[in-house]
């Protein structure tokens, strides 16, 4: 029976009944609307925030920070990771440091960042960069070390070496691993940025995290939940629109999957 229905039918039904149950539960008055707003209220807030431009402005501020921080982290991470793979003592020092720092949630950098940069854009960027950088360094290091030696031997006998070998063989061969490192770095950056925006009111821009925190201060849980949903959707979209297509194209074009 179930197997004859189109695949999205069951998930849609489940989601709708969950939302409906939630709506009904809140409206029945068994729980305070202030603590636990109904989905319709969250949607209402979403609509208002969208129309007033508040939501888009905040999303834009957050995305700008995220993309800038991520780009800096990735731009630094790729050469550093390559250096780690290439030079043994760099791997034994920077590589090990990266391993340690990667386990550190980058929100831990917030106090230092505020002290070093002040309550400014740079502080947020620093936290985002710290979230991205080490994941990228480690992924690049790993994937460069895992490039099949056969490729290198073949390229070398054809006269490739130095920069040519790096740009035409090692990096392309390592690309799938580098990309999944970037994806991980992106996820870390996203988390650290939210934490930074919630903890610190950055005067230079009002991002999604700040919007969520404002909701907390105004005791508007519809806003808090609405922002949570937006954060989730933006994260999903980044994956669906950007990373997943590149990744699957890369894998398909190399015959790693159908």
């Amino acid at each position, binding site marked *: 029976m179930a197997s004859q229905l189109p695949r999205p039918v069951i998930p849609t039904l489940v989601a709708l009944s969950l939302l409906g149950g939630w709506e009904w539960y809140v409206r029945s008055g068994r729980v305070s609307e202030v603590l636990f707003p109904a989905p319709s209220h969250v949607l209402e807030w979403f609509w208002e925030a969208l129309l007033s431009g508040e939501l888009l402005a905040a999303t834009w501020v957050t995305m700008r920070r995220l993309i800038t921080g991520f780009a800096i982290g990735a731009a630094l991470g790729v050469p550093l990771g390559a250096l780690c793979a290439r030079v043994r003592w760099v791997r034994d020092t920077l590589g090990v440091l990266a391993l340690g720092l990667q386990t550190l949630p980058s929100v831990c950098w917030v106090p230092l960042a505020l002290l070093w940069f002040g309550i400014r854009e740079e502080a947020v960027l620093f936290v985002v960069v710290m979230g991205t950088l080490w994941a990228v360094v480690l992924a690049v290091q790993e994937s460069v070390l895992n490039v099949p030696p*056969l490729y290198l031997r073949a390229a070398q006998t054809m006269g490739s070496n130095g920069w040519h070998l790096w740009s035409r063989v090692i990096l392309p061969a390592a690309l799938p691993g580098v990309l999944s490192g970037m994806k991980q770095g992106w996820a870390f950056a996203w988390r650290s940025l939210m934490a930074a925006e919630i903890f610190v009111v950055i005067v230079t821009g009002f991002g999604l995290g700040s919007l969520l925190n404002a909701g907390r201060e105004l005791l508007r849980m519809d806003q808090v939940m609405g922002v949570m949903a937006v954060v989730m959707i933006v994260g999903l979209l980044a994956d669906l629109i950007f990373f997943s297509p590149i990744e699957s194209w890369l894998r398909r074009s190399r015959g790693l999957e159908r």
Partner: protein
Amino acid sequence: MGNRSETSPASAALTLRNVTKRFDGASGQVTALEDITLDVREGEFLAVVGPSGCGKSTLLSLLAGLEHTNEGEIKLGDQPVEAPGRDRLVMFQQDALFPWLNVLENVLFGLRLKPDLTEAERLESARYYLNLVGLGSKEKARPHELSGGMRQRVALARSLAPNPRVLLMDEPFSALDALTREQLYGDLQEIFTKRKKTIVLVTHNIREAVCLGDRVVLFSPNPGRVQQVFDVNLPRPRRLNDPALANLAAEVTSALSPRLAR
């Protein structure tokens, strides 16, 4: 033994003089090759055959410049071989095609490292060799879309296209099925006859060595040494099932392992 193959240096493409190669193994030093003296003549197809562990793959790495000798000297013409170079291209056991490039781009890879060619000349050359190996219609395909035999053909085209002085082949047919292998023996002999390339083929397959080589050099293991050199004076193209070829292969086999001789 082996001295009867010595030729004057003038006609030799590759000369090896007292070459010894040792590796650091888990249980001390291992001598992979000991005191190898050998000439590869210009335009000759030399097949090196021997059981596993006889150092024949090491020999090829030395010729390619991917490894260095401990003792002795290897020369290409009158230049010592010290590093990899375009004048000696290698075909490996696995095809080593780059999965991020299509067939044509793979063949162009080596050609693009030759600065003296124009892009149009490179394209022309790449297409010529792809046609030579019968894959002219597959230039846009990715390596993973091809069969193992086709991939090795692309690898052959890639090695031939930059027009190296010597082609080094490291058991390039061993991972292929018998039918594809025989087809490639035919292709390779045709190309060899047409282009008169100097080729060194390393293999553990005696029939293959006799089918392809102008001379067959038999290596003995532990440490790798030249045991005997056989001249193969059979007309080309040779067929694997040719009785004369089978007889010679049996002769090589019995030299390798007298107990196997009938």
